[in-house]
């Protein structure tokens, strides 16, 4: 188990290096002169040049790359061109909000998705299955910004139960989390269902029934545990969608998170910020998938014990 974990962690390193490099070169393809942007509209050519030197933009690309990577290792993400503050400060101010939102969404959508999937799967072909899967296919087809608006109209404007925008409290989190989690819940439900349907065909399920176990025990004690091995992988992948979806959801609810920051930075061509944000999003995704790999091993005794 320890060796497996270490192997996984080591296996992530090449991907990390590629991603960092990719992001670095990628962002340098953004058109426009960043020095010009920083210096401002009225700046003279000399001003622009001095800013360019300050930012190290006059150095050759390989030098910039090395500087960038060493900076990253030290936790230096550069300065935001827009706010003139360290990107790290900007990011950390909002990181917690986005994490709260994605984790809350992931938690509820996993619970609901798994329950709906099991319910549909074990009643395959019956009305429960039809209902569950109709809900699920609708869930993956709903534009999340639209759900957001409808939720705001209903719960914030009409019923006045919840705030429309902002962050910081649990109440602020409810509507964005529902918005963001809906499609994920639907995807998890669909996957859980097909996994349960497959597992219920297995010989050991027949054995469990032959033992006279209650159908509840067969479902939750035998089928569920086995289907979770593959469902866990999907839940991990969904985290990527959550991070992506958070950009849109944050825009709908004016929720001060990383997604909002990304949009503001893109609009301003604030490339140190864009670069760092894309990197943080993909890092997060990589780490989650690493955790999923390890969780997968914990659920699967064959890997756990080897």
């Amino acid at each position, binding site marked *: 188990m320890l060796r497996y974990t270490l192997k996984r962690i080591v296996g992530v390193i090449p991907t990390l290096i590629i991603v960092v490099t990719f992001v670095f070169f990628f962002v340098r393809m953004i058109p426009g002169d960043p020095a010009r942007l920083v210096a401002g509209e009225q700046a003279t050519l000399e001003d622009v040049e001095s800013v360019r030197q300050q930012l190290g933009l006059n150095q050759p690309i390989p030098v910039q790359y090395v500087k960038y990577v060493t900076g990253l290792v030290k936790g230096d993400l550069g300065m935001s061109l827009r706010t003139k503050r360290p990107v790290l400060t900007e990011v950390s101010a909002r990181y917690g909000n986005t994490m709260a939102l994605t984790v809350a969404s992931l938690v509820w959508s996993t619970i609901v998705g798994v329950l709906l999937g099991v319910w549909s799967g074990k009643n395959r072909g019956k009305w429960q299955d039809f209902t569950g899967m109709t809900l699920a296919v609708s869930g993956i087809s709903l534009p999340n910004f639209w759900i957001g608006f409808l939720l705001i109209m209903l719960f914030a404007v009409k019923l006045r139960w919840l705030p429309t925008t902002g962050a910081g409290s649990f109440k602020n989190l409810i509507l964005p989390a529902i918005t963001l989690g809906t499609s994920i819940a639907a995807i998890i439900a669909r996957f859980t269902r097909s996994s349960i349907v497959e597992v219920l065909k297995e010989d*050991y399920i*027949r054995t469990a029934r032959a033992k006279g176990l209650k159908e509840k025990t067969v479902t939750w004690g035998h089928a569920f545990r086995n289907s979770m091995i593959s469902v866990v992988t999907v839940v991990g992948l969904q985290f990527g969608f959550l991070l992506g979806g958070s950009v849109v959801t944050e825009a709908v609810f004016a929720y001060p998170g990383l997604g909002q920051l990304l949009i503001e930075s893109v609009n301003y061509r604030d490339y140190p910020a864009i670069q760092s944000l894309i990197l943080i999003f993909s890092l997060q995704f990589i780490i989650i998938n690493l955790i999923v790999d390890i969780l997968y091993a914990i659920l699967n005794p064959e890997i756990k014990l080897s």
Partner: protein
Amino acid sequence: MEDNRKNILEVKNLHTYFYTDSGVVKSVDGVDFVLKEGATLGIVGESGSGKSVTSLSIMGLLTGTTGKIAEGEILLEGRDIAHISEEEKRKMRGSQISMIFQEPMTSLNPVMKIGKQLTECILQHQNISKEEAYQKAEDMLRKTGVPRVEHMMKEYPFQLSGGQRQRVMIAMALVCRPKILIADEPTTALDVTIQAQILDLMNDLKEEIGTSILFITHDLGVVAEVCDEVVVMYCGRVVEKGDVYSLFAKPSHPYTIGLLNSIPKLGEAAEELEVIPGNVPNPKYMPKGCKFAPRCSRAFDKCMEEEPGFFSIGDGHMSRCWLCEKGGV
């Protein structure tokens, strides 16, 4: 010879049909047999003969498939178990009748420890503490002759060999001391040497626990080794039945004879092994007369026209073949 042992299981005129999209498949179409207390009854047939469906019908494990018992009775100690509620069937499974399957490699839950798989069966049917159940499970597992029992209770199926897994399956099936054990091709997937050990083990445990065995197989060699009585099935019907000595000495249905001839015999010159020509007919396009007639080398006009009933060969030995109408083949 009069058999005074009481009937533990009687299957009477059992019909199990599968209702598929493309029509009704009559997998079991009128099967009768009796299992005596303490006896081992072999059900022999090719795949598709309906032998496994018969066993699933007895177990009440057709739920969730398109199969249904359309007609007939299954009497467990005189009580019909074909038409009881799902809940009653569930309570009966594992405690009164239990079953072991062909594939020991896939029949155990891969993510559950052996000990848990054994004890959950006891806890489901008996009102005892977890510790007691665990102890019982361990004792039962020890009886199957596996090594390092305490250790194995904490292991997962993938850590066991095929033979060991089948022993675990047997322990699991017998741990609640059922009246009947249905063994569906329990040795087919195993090595020949292990096969013999497993058959011996089943025989020993049968005596010790006092269970009766319904042994389902395609292998007449295995039947000769373990069974008292034999039922030969073909296309959802019983074509011949009798006690094992009579049936092997005087096989009367051409199908049985064909099966016997297709067993390689030691010591005989390696002549060509006889095979039964053709295949089991498609269940949707059953021949009109005797179901075996199209493959039978001795079929005559009547066989094609009319399905034969049972003819007695003597001493409970019966055959469903027109050749036996006038006595003897």
